[in-house]
């Protein structure tokens, strides 16, 4: 889809100019290279953005190599979740005083720009928006967010956004959208904020028909190359009819219940709230930390975890993503980013499990 307003093309210098502009107002989070892995991280300078790498991903496998161009990888190993729903966040501080307890709400005040988001992660944010609709902590961060999306021109072996109907083309929700063309970049705005910034850029020229055609060709090629793994319309009902453990038991032999899939997933939101106090008990903090339905104390009632077996935890996870979520938030809990497949240390492939159980 076209962005709002006109499109422009620019060079890498133009992107640098854009980056500098963004940096004036925002903490810019962009893909960076660390120890052979691309991760979203706050970047100080444009040069630190990890351009020109290609990622090879497969179940339980990840590697990088150099590539011609800039936005040549797909998405970083971590996701926007790390910034919008941080792994550790203090919610409330309680202090003891003469008159009783005094509570202080601690809000994260960061104004962030997520630079280089792909269709899957853009959708993931949309999903988190629904989950945390009434969460003031998330909402603060969210309302100050600037989103620069990028169109994928390449997919890894674990990508399945097409199957989930979430990509590869970003549909909406971004402020700016970049497509890498031969030696230049097509930029379009998706919001007023984006439009204003785009118009103020010095290094740009108005996009021509050929620019759009070149983009169209690239995107079509990718869409055609991507496989469709299953028909998502049928999945929820099939899953609901296959909850009996016999469908799930085979997973018991392979799944470590290590929690990795839930942690790397851009939409898995479950958390725990810890109480961290000082020994003298003058102060105590309520801290929200990422949790996981695979954790052995997750569903504990009277010190007994209702989901003892690993396969029942796997069922909870997969059913949540592909069935329950729809009832809860009117969307799948999966955007097809493939992170859980790549980052599973034993390479369990959720697509194959969905196919096996609901196929």
């Amino acid at each position, binding site marked *: 889809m076209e962005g709002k307003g006109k499109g422009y093309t620019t060079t890498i210098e133009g992107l640098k100019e854009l980056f500098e502009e963004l940096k004036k107002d925002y903490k810019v989070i962009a893909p960076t290279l660390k120890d052979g892995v691309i991760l979203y991280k706050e970047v100080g300078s444009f040069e630190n953005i990890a351009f020109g790498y290609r990622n090879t991903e497969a179940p339980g496998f990840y590697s990088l190599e150099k590539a011609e161009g800039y936005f040549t990888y797909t998405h970083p190993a971590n996701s926007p979740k790390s910034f919008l729903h941080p792994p550790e966040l203090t919610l409330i501080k309680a202090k003891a005083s003469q008159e009783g307890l005094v509570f202080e709400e601690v809000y994260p005040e960061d104004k962030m720009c997520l630079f280089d988001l792909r269709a899957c992660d853009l959708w993931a944010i949309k999903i988190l928006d629904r989950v945390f609709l009434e969460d003031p902590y998330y909402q603060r961060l969210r309302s100050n967010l600037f989103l620069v999306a990028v169109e994928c021109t390449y997919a890894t072996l674990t990508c399945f956004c097409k199957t989930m109907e979430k990509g590869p083309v970003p549909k909406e929700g971004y402020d700016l959208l970049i497509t890498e063309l031969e030696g230049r970049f097509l930029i379009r705005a998706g919001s007023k904020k984006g439009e204003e910034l785009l118009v103020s850029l010095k290094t740009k020229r108005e996009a021509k028909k050929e620019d759009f055609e070149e983009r169209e060709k690239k995107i079509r090629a990718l869409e055609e190359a991507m496989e469709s793994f299953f028909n998502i319309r049928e999945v929820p009902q099939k899953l609901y009819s296959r*909850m009996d453990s016999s469908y799930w038991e085979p997973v018991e032999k392979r799944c470590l219940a290590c929690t990795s899939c839930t942690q790397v997933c851009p939409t898995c939101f479950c958390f725990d709230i810890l109480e961290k106090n000082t020994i003298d008990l003058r102060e105590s903090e309520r801290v929200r930390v990422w*949790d996981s339905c695979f954790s052995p104390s997750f569903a504990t009632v009277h010190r007994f975890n209702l989901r003892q077996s690993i396969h029942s935890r796997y069922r909870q996870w997969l059913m949540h993503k592909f069935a329950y979520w729809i009832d809860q938030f009117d969307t799948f809990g999966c955007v097809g980013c493939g992170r859980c497949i790549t980052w599973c240390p034993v390479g369990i492939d959720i697509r194959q499990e969905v196919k096996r159980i609901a196929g």
Partner: protein
Amino acid sequence: MLVKNPYLLKAGRVEKVIKECEGIYTFHIATEESAVFGQYNMLYAFGKGEAPITIASKGENYVVHTVRAVGDVTKHIDSLKEGDLLYWRGPYGNRWDLERAYGKTLLIISGGLGLAATRWVFEEAQKSPVKRLIHLYGAKDYDSLLYRYLYKDWNNRADFRIVLSNPHPQWKGKVSLITNLLKELDLEKDTIVFMCGPDPMVKACIPLLKEKGIDEDSVYASLERHMKCSVGTCGHCMIGPYFVCKDGPIFRYDLIKEYFERKEV
């Protein structure tokens, strides 16, 4: 857009403390906050954490909580004295669908501490156009009976029956299981049932009700699950597609049956 912080805690004075039995106390907490029967509050213990506790009853400007000391939070609450401050947030959750029982028989089944979750709606039912009101209450021991001081009143206004699992010299009533009591009951097909008790009790009652022709969609159960946020975002209390904290804790049985009866869901 500013949303209200669901984690902010309010304070209220403990106005009254009633010892129910060993390790279980009832508290009257001053508050103007409105609530409905079936809901619960998250009570806070400084430096320890929070626990969901049902609103056992409500007066003009106080709420009633009955708390059994089992862990950090509940032990703290039970140590509170009159005049102390209690911190909490809430109320959360849905309510008993009392209106459905208007003009019909309402059967309430409570097991153990589950009575705290049915007390308020039971009291309200006594004042409402329910045709027939029966309450079966099962407790383990004579010493663990709750709200003894209300029985007389209740007996005057409703059919309130108690059964104990273990005999006691002072106990003149039935010693049996709540399911046996239920078996003996004569019930109309269109009876509405409210239940709160341990999961196995709920599971055992369902087929007996069925035998009497009472459909699962006339049965409501209040569930207990692990909860951290109470606003449907932490994931802990999930049962099937439902968040017990905000879609519950009360569920029409036919809606949760699939998940409730299956192991490890």
